[in-house]
């Protein structure tokens, strides 16, 4: 209980950038979930805890998404980190988008941060670029077995070339964002209950 209340108190004290600006109700909900996932009551989650979630095992990107909870090779994530990752998926409020203080960092649920989250799922080696190889790996995960490796390679080639503007054979984040500029990311990368 103490943990929860301390967590709940934090958002009030901390600047929103420090603690994800998730609403109180969502925080409570997330914290419940966090404790439910935390199998040994150890106060943090490790990979195993997330891997237990059945549906994630059949999600082609499940492992990568789990990895995104553990940045920089760490093996545990506390509630703050947990909520921080999920805060990416908060819906964008129309009124709020333009109004945040420019001095503060962008909110986690901004369009760019949503995109960045998706981008780092592709960019395994964290070099800021999606190489053809990385693209191929993602495709391999997402495309059914019925598509041959050869086809996959050609798809990967084309995908990279389509987005690649500076001709370096890889997709940088800006190029990535550009290919999706027509897409309503705010809508597509949001989950309502995280409001």
């Amino acid at each position, binding site marked *: 209980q103490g943990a929860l209340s301390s967590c709940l108190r934090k958002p009030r004290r901390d600047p929103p950038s420090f603690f994800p600006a998730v609403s109180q109700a969502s925080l409570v909900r997330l914290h419940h979930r966090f404790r439910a996932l935390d199998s040994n009551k150890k106060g943090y989650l490790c990979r195993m805890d997330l891997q237990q979630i059945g549906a994630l095992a059949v999600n082609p990107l499940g492992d990568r998404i789990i990895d995104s909870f553990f940045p920089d090779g760490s093996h545990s994530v506390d509630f703050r980190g947990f909520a921080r990752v999920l805060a990416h998926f908060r819906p964008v409020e129309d009124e709020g988008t333009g109004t945040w203080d420019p001095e503060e960092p962008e909110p986690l649920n901004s369009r760019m941060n949503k995109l960045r989250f998706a981008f780092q799922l592709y960019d395994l080696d964290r070099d800021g670029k999606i190489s053809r190889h990385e693209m191929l790996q993602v495709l391999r995960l997402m495309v059914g077995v019925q598509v041959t490796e050869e086809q996959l390679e050609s798809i990967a*080639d084309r995908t990279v070339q389509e987005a690649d503007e500076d001709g370096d054979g890889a997709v940088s984040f800006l190029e990535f964002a550009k290919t999706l500029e027509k897409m309503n990311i705010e809508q597509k990368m949001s989950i309502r209950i995280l409001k």
Partner: protein
Amino acid sequence: MLRAALPLLGLPLAGAAAEGEPTQEPGAPGEPPPSLALFRWQWHEVEAPYLVALWILVASLAKIVFHLSRKVTSLVPESCLLILLGLVLGGIVLAVAKKAEYQLEPGTFFLFLLPPIVLDSGYFMPSRLFFDNLGAILTYAVVGTLWNAFTTGAALWGLQQAGLVAPRVQAGLLDFLLFGSLISAVDPVAVLAVFEEVHVNETLFIIVFGESLLNDAVTVVLYKVCNSFVEMGSANVQATDYLKGIASLFVVSLGGAAVGLVFAFLLALTTRFTKRVRIIEPLLVFLLAYAAYLTAEMASLSAILAVTMCGLGCKKYVEANISHKSRTAVKYTMKTLASCAETVIFMLLGISAVDSSKWAWDSGLVLGTLVFILFFRALGVVLQTWVLNQFRLVPLDKIDQVVMSYGGLRGAVAFALVILLDRTKVPAKDYFVATTIVVVFFTVIVQGLTIKPLVKWLKVKRSEHHKPTLNQELHEHTFDHILAAVEDVVGHHGYHYWRDRWEQFDKKYLSQLLMRRSAYRIRDQIWDVYYRLNIRDAISFVDQGGHVLSSTGLTLPSMPSRNSVAETSVTNLLRESGSGACLDLQVIDTVRSGRDREDAVMHHLLCGGLYKPRRRVRAEKCLRHFISEDARERQDKEVFQQNMKQRLESFKSTKHNICFTKSKPRLRKAGRKKKDGVANTGTTNGKPPRDVGFQDTAAVILTVESDSSETEKEDDEGIIFVARATSEVLQEGKVSGSLEVCPSPRIIPPSPTCAEKELPWKSGQGDLAVYVSSETTKIVPVDMQTGWNQSISSLESLASPPCTQAPTMTHLPPHSLATEEPQAPLALPSDPLLSFAFPPSWAKAGRSRSESSADIPQQELQPLMGQEDHTHLSPGAANPPCIQFNKGGRL
């Protein structure tokens, strides 16, 4: 559905016509003994279908006329024009026949005109969008329609109580509720007709349109319940009847949907087995969908819902199962039928309005209805949206609400329903008919006219059409997976969770059951998009003027799968250069997958066919491309040119000899022999690319050539082309020369030369590449060396060019031709190479052939060599022209 229970009037047009026009029928009326008539006029036998066809024709012609003027159609929706046309036609008919004819009969409308429209909209409904907004759509369709019906009905009753409606309108509360139920439903036909031209954003469109489709169930139930209540008399209605009414709402809607899904399943399953009878595939789609409609109608369920669900449910599987042509056929037939039905509906609606016998005007009722439907629609939308926005990820803003309120058009469904009322039970029917007509006309014409400016004025987000890109498709899938995963992590089973579940279920069971195995195997959305993009690109390339081949040839090397040393280097070059062409090329390359092989073959065949007339142009193009390559390549080019010169010289001599000695058949033979010999010896394999390539002077080209074996086709053509290749100017000279020298048609230089030029590019086709085995390129037979030695001797006789060439060669060893390197030193000094070189190019081309003829070559080769040697020695005359050529080549 209720409508089914009503007497089916058959083809109303026909019926009306039968009554109305007994006109021309001069068969043989009075004469007792019917003698053999030379000419018989049997109007009656064809009357019904003839009239139907005529009306459709009139409607179609009207459409054409409307669209003659862009200005008119951009301002006025087609539906308005059609209704107005209907009014005019109705007036004419009334004036001529003194009687209203050809009206919109409910039976025709529900059984023939409505189904195609609904099927079209259901089948081509963007399912993802539809299900994403299903909550909102259902709310508006169910709650909204109920709200509209009850409030409008009640308010009209209140109006009557207040004395604002003339007392001659004899109607009670139930009558007004009945009227409210039929007037409240937003009409899919009208909405579709107007919104298709307005292009509001897709979310808005799908909500309004989805509502208009799904509210059919509610309308039907309300109408039926109210109608039966009116018939029973309000005194006899008991509590259980109300409960039954509510229950029937679920029966009708869920039943209709279930019927639709069952038929969708049947349809998908049937198309799985049509592999050998492709021709009936489109027919099946229409038949089973229509069967779904009729079945639902028969069971008094919501037929519109049934067809919508049928189209929505079957599309994915049907599209995967049926052939490409059938898909096109289905699409076009569906669109044609729907548009035809829509046209006829609006036109008949206009005609029907003319019949004043059905009318009974009451201003209070008409105005009251107009005000109430607008007001309650707006109020209902605002209230529901407020509730919905609590749950929606993307709230609907005020502008959306305005458009939704204003877009609630009423149409032919309401009209057909009101016509179906029984005058004996509903004494105020005539007033209701008049009111309905006014409401329909007002919404379609006034609102239809003004909604476009309104949308512009409010700056409603328009739909933006952008072609799907591979990236978008891929990332969209990624987002779906991410969201599903996040929902899992959060532990909330929301929309994404269930969609994910459904997709997995679909993949595991449904698709396997309903899709042809071959279709299932290759089915993948990302791949589909990729495939479609490729086809689109290929088409656009061809459209651009047939440069496809050349560009393909260029890029081919970029394909990663083929791995000869030379190739990889080329690919790297291309990659690094990052030329714009790369993308295109790549696209075309990709076609090589097993699934596309067939297509690829077809494509190549086509290209081959188209190729000839344009050869020259394309060749030039290619040259340009190559010239633009970087400096390194230029160096290679020069080296090649020099080599070529040498070869040319030697070649010339050989050619002359041949010409003199034998007529064309001979020549041919010789050429073949050479090829064969080359093939056997294998030495030439590495070289042929050079020979071919020298024309273009780009090393890259050469390497490509070696990989791809397309050259086969051209192989027969004379040795001559080599000379050509150096430069076009030279070619001309050469041509003349060659013609003079040899009378044989075979040798005719121009065509072969052109062909030669193209050869390298031609090789670009992915399929062909398969033939080129790495082995062939690698074989460097010992015989070659002997051949070279011989040629060297001849070369020495030609002394002049070699000295200049030798130094350059040494400077620039062709990097890409790794296999040839060892031989290159030998080749440098050698004109002899030239003599051999020709054959190699052929050999290359004819490689496939050479396999069959491989046994023969060795012996034949020898004589050939001898000849060549002779030629070298004997003709001094040959040398000077060669030199000239060289110059030209450099130029």
